[in-house]
């Protein structure tokens, strides 16, 4: 066991670089700026996708067409809503967290390939513009899954732009993943083996492996789609010997693992947030780390459960079995997080509230996921609002709540300012309740017979749809509480110390925001990133406080007596 308990005595606070608008808009290879660029770009598209969702829910207030001219316009709304939220919000947002945090967590000065990192980011804005440009040429209308022949023979030119945009985003994703893997492999500090890495790093590693293995299949499918649409090939046209199931298979071979691309980094964020704010070591570190890899691996064998109503009947059972197996490593994670909370000293910071919200909502998505894996039941609810509900519990209740938790947790590090905790709690309460009432009733709608992707529906489903729509409007508005919080906190928030949460991972062992080189000298990581509750960890954290200033909850035996910090910003 390592004996270094207080490696950073003698470390000093330096004035970190705060980033202005001009820094954000220019080409730079600093991973921190690139991380912020990712996050801001993704957040912009979150608002775009959210606005589309609001239009969808407005249309669905009544069973007939109201605000849309025809079904086609409505189809374009949800097609772009889904694509934007997946490929331009969650995936790049997670890449933003990865970019900002990974070198800091590893005590490195930058990513392994800084120039490639910047290039991967700068593919995203043009790709996003390309996708939105579809509205000028007839936007894609075949859903984010874009099944042929609807997407080939029956769609307008926006579908081609859609495919080209996804090509760029896929490339960006692959380049980012290569960079993450090489960085994790080669740039860990002395004393940090794979099993001393923070779990967020493990999550990014597992995610990057999935991206590297799966995204080329998306590229393959998109290439065939573009060829069919533009060059006149017939890969997906059965009248000319093509096959419509070819797309479904190749597309889902990417897009099911893509679910884990979106949710594993959120798992990583959750592991950090729960442990730090419950003041307790993560329960079953190895189980959580390795279950990410298990999910990554098994995740490649389950794709056809998205095709239970189109797949040859004989093949359905094998995919049901693999899909159910994946519940086991996911369950391990959930129970390990519960074990982390048990006997902790839970602090109800905004980050922790969203972490707890994640845990409680993601469980619902997990349970409905196992139900969906069961072929006979899936047949009934396939392509209904039950699936819409399930996927939003996973991707909103999971990924987006994870992103929120991460934002509250790392905003002080990124900006040097604390977010307002009162606004944070308000944001959590409004989001949590309106989220539940937006998505939970959709289970019932789907089971009772409402298909997804319809602008008109049977009148008996109206009352629940009104509940869903109203809740969704509140959910949409709740986002602005966070945006407002970010704006006021950036201007006048309380100054953040280096380590406001008394966390043991390395990104907190430097000033907030960190200097351009991240650290002064080579930092030595504390031997266990989750070693809370031990005397040596306490000594290490106290040493950090004496070097960099007090945390939000200073230890009573810290070197200097410090007044209790108010919860809200000053």
């Amino acid at each position, binding site marked *: 066991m390592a004996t270094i308990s207080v490696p950073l005595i003698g470390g000093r606070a330096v004035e970190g670089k705060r980033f202005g608008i001009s820094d954000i808009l220019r080409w730079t290879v600093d991973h921190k700026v690139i991380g912020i660029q990712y996050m801001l770009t993704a957040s912009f598209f979150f608002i775009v996708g959210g606005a589309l969702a609001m239009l969808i829910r407005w249309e669905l207030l009544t069973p007939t067409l109201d605000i849309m001219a025809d079904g086609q316009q409505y189809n374009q709304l949800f097609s772009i809503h889904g694509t934007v939220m997946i490929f331009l919000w969650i995936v790049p947002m997670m890449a933003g967290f990865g970019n900002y945090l990974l070198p800091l967590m590893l005590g490195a000065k930058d990513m392994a390939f800084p120039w490639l990192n910047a290039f991967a980011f700068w593919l995203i804005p043009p790709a996003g513009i390309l996708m939105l440009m579809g509205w000028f040429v007839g936007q894609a209308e075949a859903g984010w899954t874009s099944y042929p022949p609807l997407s080939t023979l029956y769609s307008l030119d926006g579908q081609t732009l859609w495919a080209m945009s996804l090509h760029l985003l896929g490339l960006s994703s692959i380049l980012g993943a290569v960079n993450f893997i090489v960085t994790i492999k080669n740039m860990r500090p002395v004393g940090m083996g794979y099993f001393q890495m923070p779990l967020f790093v493990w999550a990014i590693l597992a995610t990057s492996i999935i991206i590297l293995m799966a995204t080329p299949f998306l590229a393959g499918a998109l290439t065939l789609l573009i060829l069919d649409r533009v060059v006149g090939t017939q890969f997906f046209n059965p009248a000319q010997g093509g096959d419509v199931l070819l797309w479904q298979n190749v597309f889902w071979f990417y897009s099911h693992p893509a679910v884990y691309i979106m949710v594993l980094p959120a798992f990583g964020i959750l592991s950090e947030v729960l442990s730090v704010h419950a003041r307790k070591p993560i*329960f079953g570190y190895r189980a959580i780390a390795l279950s990410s890899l298990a999910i990554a691996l098994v995740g490649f064998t389950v794709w056809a459960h998205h095709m239970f109503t189109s797949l040859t009947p004989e093949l359905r059972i094998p995919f049901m079995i693999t899909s159910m197996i994946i519940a086991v490593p996911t*369950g391990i994670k959930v129970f390990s997080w519960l074990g982390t909370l048990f006997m902790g000293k839970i602090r109800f910071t905004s980050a922790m509230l969203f972490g*707890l919200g994640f845990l409680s909502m993601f469980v619902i998505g997990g349970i409905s996921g196992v139900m969906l894996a069961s072929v006979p039941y899936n047949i009934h609810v396939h392509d209904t609002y039950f699936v819409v509900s399930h996927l939003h519990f996973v991707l909103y209740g999971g990924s987006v709540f994870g992103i929120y938790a991460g934002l509250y947790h790392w905003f002080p590090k990124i900006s040097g300012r604390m977010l307002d905790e009162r606004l944070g709690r308000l944001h959590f309460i409004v989001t949590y309740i309106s989220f539940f009432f937006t998505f939970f009733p959709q289970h019932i709608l789907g089971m009772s017979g409402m298909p997804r992707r319809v602008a008109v529906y049977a009148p008996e489903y109206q009352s629940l749809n009104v509940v869903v729509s109203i809740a969704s409007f509140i959910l949409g508005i709740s986002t602005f509480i966070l945006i407002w919080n970010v704006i006021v906190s950036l201007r006048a928030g309380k100054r953040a110390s280096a380590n406001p949460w008394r966390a043991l991972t390395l990104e907190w062992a430097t000033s907030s925001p960190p200097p351009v080189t991240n650290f002064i000298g080579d930092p030595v990581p504390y031997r266990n990133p989750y070693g809370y509750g031990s005397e040596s960890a306490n000594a290490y954290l106290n040493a950090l406080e004496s070097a960099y200033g007090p945390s939000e909850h200073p230890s009573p035996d810290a070197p200097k007596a410090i007044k209790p910090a108010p919860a809200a910003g000053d």
Partner: protein
Amino acid sequence: MNLSTRSPGSAGSGISPIWVVAAGLAIIFGGLLIGSFAPAILPPQASAESRQIDALFRFMLAIGGSIFLLVQGMLVYSVIRFRAKPGDASDGAPIHGNTTLEFVWTIIPAIIVTVLALYSVSVWNSTHSIKPNEQTVGAVGARYAWTFNYQLDARALPSGVTLDQLEPNIRAAVENGGLTLSSTQLHTWVNQPVAVSMNTQDVNHAFWIPGMRVKQDLLAGRTTEIRFTPIEAGVYRIVCAELCGSGHGNMAGSVDVNGNLVGAWLIVHESEDAFRSEFFDPLARAALFPPEDPVERGRQILASGVYPCASCHVVDDLGWNGAVGPNLNNVGSRAATRVAGESAEEYLRISIRMPGAYLVPGYNNLMPQFNAEPGQPNYMPDDDLDAIIAYLLTLKTS
């Protein structure tokens, strides 16, 4: 790492075993209670399959409900019991894991999913298997309507009808493989296993009857099948569940302002006799003894739903209220003025054979092309076309 072997459930937290047992029982009964809501959420059970599938769902909901209560219960308990008191800046217990506990929460979910998988396989094997004496029906999906095809051969003639009464060409058709009768609705009767063989004329669709709990995609270039056995007489909405374009939401059964069923519905009659007398025999008689008058024949063809016009066009005489294509009331007088030098009859003929040739302003080119040659998609014989045009020319504004 400091791996503690203390069990957080027993040592340290001071929870007595009685409370653990009580919580366990509460979780199990709570799960059963949640499971009992299943029938209230699902549509009424109307098929043999729905009984098995609902039982499976109820089982999964009970287990899922228990897991939900367990996790949320643990969460709420921890949040209340282990919250940091004001001013307490100390850390929690340095527990890094517990191998026994981790083993248990790996094995128990593994057992649960194994049981679920076995149960699901048994339900699946019984629900999708081929049944004896199936009624076979053909289904065709087209943007945005369903057509159901029934075979009429010599054995299925309506009572009182003999082959001798038929005109020679119709008799020959009946004897050589049979006539195809078409309807926008799927008719069957109680306890009759149905096998539907499905094709699409354009994009993928999905055939779903929520009341029967069955769904199957229609795939371009393939024939797919679906099976179910209704056990309750009644009407059940048929829904398209795979995005097929602008009118996807309209590709389902609906009810008009007068309470009539419009579009795709499954009609389950009380008995085979009722099925024949209320549905099959009148349809068969109309096909066996076609009216001489082309106008009447045209009306009969369109009303039968053999061509999916109803989903897009308005014809008051037939009760059509589609909103995607032009209104056909009084179409004859408008068609005569559309293209200089072309009669209304010629204009309509071209508009059906080549819908893209003339577009009514304000409408897109969405209509399928109806071809004159057998074997082509959307085959419409010249006889039918003549009769349809004759009928359309008689339509008046109502």
